[in-house]
């Protein structure tokens, strides 16, 4: 009855999401907020019976739009069903936000916070009502090749002991790793900044599920009160399983399950398939411990003692000056060979140092040396470079985030790409090297792009190449959430309504966005660079936007045209005839009024008009020269008036005199003849 009443309740006009879902901004759902943004009530446009929630990605994070189709295809009771993903116009802030519409969860959040305690459930209850449904969810993720990235107790909707399956909440409203506490991340991902973790692998989800399961089994957070660094150090020292479970008494089945899921070596970690086998009764035997190998004697860095490679690698990355010393004096190599008895690792370190030295000393040589040595010491770990710790797949999200926030790490990211750290990192991988070759090739392709300074290239282009679904990150379009070139002009028109925010509707981001998403030629953008003449820039911009309007619309863009008009002044000045210039200006204004960029282009860049104007100018120049000659002649005449009178008046006088004489002679002769005849 209550449901029926709620269905009939009029929530007012909703905001349209892709024309299929209505989002209601006056119906906030604060309890369902996600890492990417707040949640609001939503309904299907034509079926109000379906209760939905929409997560508005308004926190400046780039939503994982590339995973939306995979997520929408997952129809599993233990995964919150994603119904729609797209851009919604939010009138209150005059902004567009990427929005994800999910079915409303059936229960509240299982854990409100990570520090709360829950009653310990029986092994059967956990296995039957919690583990089994979530194994199905993980199987679905694996089948779709999707890494969820946000599996944790606070993102699962369930009630202790409920027979309805738990539901995994949203994981797409922010980049993978953002919003996920470090304790649910693998050691190597936890070493990174959250935004630099990148989209991980299915095994990373299994690991997060393992930590979640351990908390559910124990009823408390074993890491309660510890900060992220302490948790990481503990995990590195003891291994995740030991650090999490410790001496607590668990059932044999759960120990086996947790050991498999919490393996720190991703190659040995259980996947969803292993979990399925486990659930059907087949027992697997994970290794007892995979904590890092300990050396026979310690290695001291910055006053602290290290016995294992991974903590040592992290310490070296954090103390570059000292790291360079121990690398260059050979003490690190000696320790690896003698104390750790790992000649292969020592050889890798030696080779990485040698390779860098052979390539010549570059800027930030010390940082580059330490980065390469750290990769050689801990190949599975992130790339540590100048304060950044980034997984190769996290370079993309880190770059996009840095651009959006205007962070200072852009130069370091650029150097990570140009120094080919990713290729080096891939080369250092042993078993999975083949799978990572495309990643290395992708970054090899990015290197020359970073080094090109012109429009349509540079780090901006790399950001769009590495983030295939990232919106245009141009500062003037950040609020417009432009995911496709099809919406670019409409967004610019919208932005221009409240006054153009920049001198021209083009910047390095828009150029890079179009070069990547619309596969535009570099030459087109080369004409827009700051080094080009304003004439070529204006015409190139007009040609580009004219084609975009022709292909994608909208038909009328008066504000964009008005924005472009001042840039076209050099194009008008190209006409040498001033009245014609004014005429072209008037015609251009007319085209601006119509909002037709192609008409504007036709008016100011008609080759026939330009050629005709040039010919007319040359004719006028010739005419000027002729007039000037005639003026000189006339001025000369006026200076010598007597000459003119003489030269023009005397012949006239002679002619007149001859005429008079002829008349007189004729009369005389006539008279004489008449006289002789009469005589």
């Amino acid at each position, binding site marked *: 009855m209550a449901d029926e009443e709620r269905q009939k309740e009029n929530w007012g006009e909703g905001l349209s999401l892709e024309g299929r879902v209505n989002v209601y901004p006056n119906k906030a759902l604060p309890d369902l907020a996600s890492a990417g943004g707040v949640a609001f009530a939503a309904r299907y446009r034509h079926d109000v019976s379906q209760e939905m929630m929409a997560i508005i990605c308004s926190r400046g994070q780039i939503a994982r739009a590339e995973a939306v189709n995979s997520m929408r295809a997952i129809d599993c009771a233990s995964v919150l069903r994603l119904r729609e993903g797209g851009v919604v116009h939010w009138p209150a802030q005059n902004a567009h936000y990427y929005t994800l519409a999910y079915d409303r969860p059936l229960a509240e959040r299982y854990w409100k916070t990570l520090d709360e305690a829950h009653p310990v459930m029986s092994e059967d209850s956990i296995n039957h009502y919690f583990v089994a449904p979530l194994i199905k969810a993980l199987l679905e993720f694996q089948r779709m090749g999707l890494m969820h990235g946000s599996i944790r107790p606070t993102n699962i909707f369930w009630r202790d002991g409920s027979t309805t399956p738990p539901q995994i909440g949203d994981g797409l409203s922010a980049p993978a790793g953002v919003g996920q506490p470090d304790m649910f991340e693998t050691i190597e991902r936890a070493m990174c900044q959250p935004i630099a973790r990148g989209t991980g692998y299915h095994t990373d989800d299994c690991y997060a599920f393992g930590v979640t399961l351990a908390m559910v089994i124990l009823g408390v957070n074993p890491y309660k009160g510890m900060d992220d660094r302490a948790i990481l150090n503990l995990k590195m020292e003891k291994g995740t399983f030991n650090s999490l479970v410790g001496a607590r008494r668990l059932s044999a089945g759960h120990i086996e399950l947790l050991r498999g899921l919490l393996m720190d070596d991703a190659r040995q970690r259980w996947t969803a398939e292993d979990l399925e086998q486990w659930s059907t009764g087949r027992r697997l035997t994970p290794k007892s411990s995979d904590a890092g190998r300990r050396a026979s004697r310690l290695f001291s860095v910055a006053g602290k003692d290290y016995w294992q490679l991974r903590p040592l690698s992290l310490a070296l990355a954090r103390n570059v000056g000292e790291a360079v010393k121990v690398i260059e004096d050979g003490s690190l190599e000696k320790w690896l060979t003698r104390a750790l008895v790992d000649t292969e690792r020592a050889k890798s370190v030696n080779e990485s140092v040698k390779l860098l030295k052979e390539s010549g000393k570059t800027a930030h040589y010390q940082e580059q040396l330490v980065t390469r040595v750290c990769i050689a010491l801990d190949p599975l770990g992130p790339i540590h470079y100048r304060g950044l710790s980034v997984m190769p797949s996290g370079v993309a999200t880190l770059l996009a985030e840095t651009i959006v926030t205007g962070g200072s790490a852009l130069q370091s990211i650029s150097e990570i790409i140009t120094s080919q750290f990713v290729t080096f990192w891939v080369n250092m991988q042993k078993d999975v090297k083949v799978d990572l070759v495309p990643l290395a090739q992708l970054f090899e392709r990015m290197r020359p792009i970073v080094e090109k300074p012109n429009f349509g290239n540079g780090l901006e282009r790399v950001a769009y190449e590495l983030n295939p679904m990232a919106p245009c990150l141009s500062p003037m379009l950040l609020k417009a959430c432009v995911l496709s070139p099809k919406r670019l002009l409409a967004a610019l028109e919208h932005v221009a309504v409240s006054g153009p925010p920049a001198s021209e509707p083009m910047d390095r981001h828009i150029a890079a966005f179009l070069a990547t998403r619309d596969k535009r030629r570099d030459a087109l953008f080369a004409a827009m660079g700051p080094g080009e003449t*304003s004439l070529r820039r204006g015409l190139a911009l007009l040609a580009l936007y004219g084609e975009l309007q022709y292909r994608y619309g909208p038909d009328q863009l008066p504000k964009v045209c008005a924005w472009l008009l001042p840039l076209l002044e050099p194009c008008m000045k190209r006409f*040498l005839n001033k009245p014609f210039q004014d005429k072209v200006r008037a015609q251009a204004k007319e085209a601006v009024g119509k909002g037709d960029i192609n008409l504007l282009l036709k008016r100011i860049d008609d080759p026939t008009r330009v050629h005709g104007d040039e010919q007319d100018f040359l004719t006028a120049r010739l005419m*000027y020269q002729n007039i000037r000659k005639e*003026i000189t002649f006339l001025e000369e005449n006026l200076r010598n008036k007597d000459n003119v009178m003489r030269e023009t008046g005397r012949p006239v006088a002679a002619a007149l*005199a001859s005429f008079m004489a002829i008349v007189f002679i004729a009369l005389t002769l006539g008279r004489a003849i008449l006289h002789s005849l009469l005589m």
Partner: protein
Amino acid sequence: MAKAKAAGKAPKAKGSGMMIFFMIIIGCLVPFGMPTLLVCMGLLPTLVALVTDTDEHRSSLATIGYLNVAGVLPFLIELWQKGQTMEAAVGILRDPLSWVIMLGSAGIGHLMLYTIPVIVGSMVLMRQEARLRTLREGIKQLESIWGPDVTNALSLDIVRQHKGV
């Protein structure tokens, strides 16, 4: 050297032409005799003009000569009608009216030489001044339409640079 020779030849050729002209005149006059020659005394102004007119087109000679010949012609006809006798010729020359008519006609020629060039020249100069004003106006218009670069011969690229393109 060759130029000097050419310069020397030109006056010589002019001089010989004049000589032939005078010889023809004298040759023509011989058959008519002395009475006709006496009446031809009325052509003295023309002879003076012939000597003094340095104009290339001989406008003064033509103006005075045509009218002078027209003034002398009635007396020549009268002489020929009276049988070309010395008495008739002297009779004509004794009559002051004959001199007035013969020399007056040349005087009219002179008068025309002084007045008509002034009138015609003034008219021509007025037209030229008007044309000059029109041309100056045209130049201003050309400059206002095409800019100052219409006055020079710079390339189109440089002209556009001047316009800030």
